[in-house]
């Protein structure tokens, strides 16, 4: 691979080193702190009974079903909301930081003044954000598996891998949405607002729509439902769920790359 192509991805990756490290550390701390309280919950029938007293809708909305089981505990405390949402935010922030934010600040100008197609510059940055996301996800997986082993959660390793892979793909989808918007218009506030807003809206749709008979069928419009609708911590994930997240990721990235060639580059 020639130095130019390596630089198009490697340069942005170097720029994201510190941010990637802090995202890894934050997620590792969240997972470790959460799992460390599992031994206190394990075998505690009181909490399960208390949750059973709550309205079914509340239990469902907040993912509290089977809270006393290892999978239920992980879902409610980590993988129904917090981890996927943090990964979505990380993906959007990292993608924005390497695209719209760099361009709007004028720091991209000297790079785009080199003999490189600006589509390659944006694609390189999108790939770099994806690699950073993959690193964060792998670290998350390693910490999760380690914590799992330490407290004896006993979740199937394959299910954990699937769950975290789906989190990563959900993040990639929202990161690629950020890239698409940055390709159309280099406005960081727009990229962050829409990217994170769509992520939060998807989470709300997947969590709350099932509570209404009218809205329940519409929960499938949410990427969160595509990712976690099959309960990946307890069941094998259908392949289509990976595809449902990966294909739009590729399409949205292509939209951004296509669009950036057809507009003016923002100045400082």
């Amino acid at each position, binding site marked *: 691979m020639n*130095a130019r192509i*390596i630089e198009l991805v490697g*340069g942005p990756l170097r*720029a994201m080193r510190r941010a990637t490290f802090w995202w890894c550390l934050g997620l590792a701390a969240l997972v470790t702190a959460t799992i460390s309280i599992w031994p206190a919950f394990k075998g505690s029938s009181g909490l399960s009974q208390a949750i059973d007293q709550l309205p079914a809708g509340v239990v469902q909305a907040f993912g509290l079903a089977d809270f006393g089981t290892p999978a239920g505990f992980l879902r409610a405390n980590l993988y129904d909301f917090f981890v996927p949402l943090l990964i979505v935010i990380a993906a959007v922030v990292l993608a924005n930081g390497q695209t719209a934010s760099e361009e709007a600040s004028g720091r991209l100008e000297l790079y785009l003044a*080199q003999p*490189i*197609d600006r589509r390659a510059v944006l694609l390189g940055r999108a790939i770099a954000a994806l690699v950073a996301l993959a690193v964060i996800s792998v670290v998350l997986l390693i910490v999760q598996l380690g914590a799992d082993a330490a407290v004896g959660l006993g979740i199937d390793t394959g299910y954990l891998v699937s769950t975290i892979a789906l989190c990563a793909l959900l993040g990639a989808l929202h990161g690629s949405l950020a890239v698409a918007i940055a390709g159309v218009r280099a406005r960081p506030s727009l990229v962050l607002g829409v990217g994170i807003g769509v992520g939060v809206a998807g989470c709300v749709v997947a969590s709350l729509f099932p509570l209404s008979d009218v809205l329940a069928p519409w929960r499938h419009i949410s990427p969160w439902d595509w990712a976690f609708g099959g309960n990946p911590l307890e069941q094998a994930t259908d392949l289509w769920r990976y595809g449902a997240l990966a294909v739009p990721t590729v399409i949205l990235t292509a939209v951004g790359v296509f669009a950036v060639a*057809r507009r003016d580059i923002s100045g400082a």
Partner: protein
Amino acid sequence: MNAADPVVQIDGLVKHYGKVEAVRGIDLRVARGEVFGFLGPNGSGKSTTIRCLLGLLRPTAGRIGAFGLDSTRDGVALRRRLTYVPGELRLPDRLSGMEFVASIGRLRGGFDPARRDQLAERLRLDLHRHLRDLSSGNRRKVALLLAFLFDADLLVLDEPTIGLDPLMQREFLALVREARAAGATVFLSSHSLSEVQRAADRVAILRAGKLVAQGTVAELRGRARQRIEVWFEDDPPEAELKALPDLVDPVVDDHRFTATLSGSIQPLIALLASHRVGSMLVEEPDLEEAFLDLYDGGPA
């Protein structure tokens, strides 16, 4: 492309930002091997024109390019042959100067490290420091180093000496002359008139998105007003003096005659030759006068 073909070619360039007409129809040619001064006050459209040339902006109308290549269609091939110093300079703060130069070097396909070190020494630039720790002048030097590091046929320099001390401005002019001697063409945008006056062969003056003058530095100076003072040993030929063309505000005061000359000095010299002149003072016009005349008084 023939050697006689212009390097930079701009035909009817128009660029609008929404309702703002930044460039309103520019036609320009820059010949091979010349240092071309692109003068104008802030907001006159210089940087917009340059960013169109680099393919960063898409013209609203007209064509702009270099080496027979179109900026929009052939941007990559065009940028392969030029280097650029942006007017509004923003560098990646997290990198050291050395890392940034290496990064751009990899994107351009390599550079000569000895040349980098030589330029850093000439510009008195410590490339090992982080860019965030550099003063604005030193950051400008990093951009200048990059512009002169690679073998480019065209150097596009937008306000290249902002923040540089006089010593470094002199070094910059030396680098420009060396680049030209090596066969490069230099497109030098500036609102620093003295800089352009010292460096450029030809000049174009931009005002509110339109070219208001174009020519050699000497031609432009010829259009500038010159203040004239003549001391006659006898009574001045007042009627003849006041009848001369291109004289503004002629005043005869005893043996002293003063006026401002806005055209050729030849008729005045011819008249003075037939009279006894004690001494004469013709103030050297500079580009600044020409520039201000055109900017303040010329039609938009």
